[in-house]
């Protein structure tokens, strides 16, 4: 009985998510006049525009943009708005990102209560009291606006929530299957070896006998990164693991875990290395601490961020060959070249998606393993 109810809830959630997605994209077609950049139809067809497009994609954004199409010289964006939640001078403000009408230059002002918000280069600013428009200094930074604390469900947050939900449904489902029989059925058969893989190939060999306490974190990190990396390769345009803030948060999780679980043996080797001359010990402590506190998390953070961002940029650049090389190679030639190259790179990116998840998890496990390792008693 309980089981059936739970399954019903699961199905309901999936159905609801799907309906929301469909309905959002249905009404979000938003027309925008494209006259100001002088193009009749195609918006992104010079190298500069391609570069801007790629840069824009790689960043986080406040609405979920799927694609544009043109009719009668008007640009229609297809996607769906995401909720904007801000904590500013006057407390909490909430509205949908469609209120900005895809403006990213600080021109559209959204008034909520006493606050006025503008969106500028993917960032939301709150105008100071009494100001009616944004003013800029020489380096194009707004001078009369403050930055509210942005709790919005941005594209990345949406991705995180979606993956969280997927992981919960998949692995929670797998966990429920075990209640009935020891061998899972269906999709669980795909997930089970992955779980065993993380436990036996990443957690156990790198951490040692105390691995059990840390498998929960390592599993979550591994599947979170892997699924998000793969989602990044779909045309939905997620770039969550290519956000520095996300990888920084993950790296700091690892840092905190291995600092908190470090034992006396670990700290003695960090601060007062046994077996070397006393004069060298403070020097070694500085080096060890720099490695533990800065280099290790920094390398974790940058490795994932750079690999995924670079992957996105390369794939998009190769796709853009189809547009930018049309003059030199004829449309057919450039399309063929871009298809072959981007297909090849995308395949490599599929591998990289797994590899980066594996490396991040493996290194986290290794660092944790070094912190909890018992010293050999001489």
């Amino acid at each position, binding site marked *: 009985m309980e089981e059936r109810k739970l399954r019903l809830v699961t199905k309901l959630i999936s159905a609801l998510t799907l309906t929301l997605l469909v309905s959002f994209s249905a009404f979000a077609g938003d027309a925008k006049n494209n006259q100001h950049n002088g193009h009749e139809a195609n918006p992104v067809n010079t190298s500069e525009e391609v570069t801007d497009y790629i840069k824009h994609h790689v960043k986080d954004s406040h609405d979920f943009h799927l694609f544009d199409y043109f009719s009668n010289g008007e640009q229609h964006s297809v996607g769906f708005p995401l909720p904007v939640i801000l904590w500013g001078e006057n407390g909490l403000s909430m509205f949908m990102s469609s209120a900005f009408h895809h403006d990213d230059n600080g021109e559209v002002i959204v008034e909520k209560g006493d606050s006025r918000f503008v969106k500028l280069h993917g*960032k939301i600013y709150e105008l100071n009291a009494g100001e009616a428009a944004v003013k800029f200094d020489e380096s194009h930074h707004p001078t009369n606006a403050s930055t509210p604390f942005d709790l919005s469900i941005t594209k*990345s947050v949406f991705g995180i929530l979606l993956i969280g939900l997927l992981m919960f449904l998949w*692995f929670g489902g797998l*966990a429920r299957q*075990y209640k009935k029989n*020891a061998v899972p059925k269906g999709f669980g058969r795909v997930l089970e070896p992955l779980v065993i893989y993380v436990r036996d190939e990443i957690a156990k060999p790198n951490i040692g006998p105390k691995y059990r306490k840390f498998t*929960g*974190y390592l*599993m979550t990190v591994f599947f979170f990164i892997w699924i998000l990396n793969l989602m990044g390769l779909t045309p939905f345009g997620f770039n969550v693991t290519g956000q520095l803030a996300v990888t920084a948060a993950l790296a700091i999780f690892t840092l905190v875990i291995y600092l908190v679980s470090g034992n006396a043996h670990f700290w003695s080797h960090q601060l007062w290395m046994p077996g070397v001359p006393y004069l060298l010990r403070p020097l070694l402590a500085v080096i060890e601490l720099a490695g533990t506190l800065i280099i290790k998390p920094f390398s974790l953070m940058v490795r994932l961020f750079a690999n995924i961002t670079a992957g996105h940029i390369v794939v998009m650049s190769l796709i853009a060959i189809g547009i930018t090389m049309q003059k030199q190679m004829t449309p057919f030639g450039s399309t063929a070249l871009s298809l072959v190259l981007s297909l090849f790179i995308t395949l490599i990116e599929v591998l990289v998606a797994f590899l980066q998840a594996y490396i991040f998890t493996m290194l986290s496990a290794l660092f944790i393993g070094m912190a909890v390792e018992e010293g050999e008693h001489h």
Partner: protein
Amino acid sequence: MEQLLENFSLDLFVKQTVLFLILIFIMVKFAWKPILKALNDREEGIKDAIDSAEKAKREMQNLQADNQKLLNEARVEREAMLKEARDIKNKMIEDAKDEAKAEASKLIAQAQASIETEKKAAIAELKSQVANLSIDIAEKVVREELSNKDKQIKLVESMLGEATLN
């Protein structure tokens, strides 16, 4: 470095930290713990099953070894019994032979003894008959001789002559 910092969004960092923390707790509680527990239980079950199978196999082997030992013992015993039987048979034949031989020799000895006695008796009888015959003959001869005086003297003389020669 500046570009890196520009890419970094503190808001997203905070959101990711909070959401990820929640995700870890949810996943540990509803997924990883039960999954790992189930996997562990299953692996231990498999290990136990293999162990007990191994044990059963070993017991089986022991049993077979015991059977073999018993069989061997039985075989040895049968051999021994057969050998004993054969020995007894041989001995019986031997004994019978000996007995028969002894009986036979006893019989032969008896027969010989009786033959000897018979022979002696026959000889004795023969002797007595010969003596009687001799006496009869002698009587007759003497009776005839003694009717003639010369012949008597001649006989006496010859007898005497013989007697001296002895």
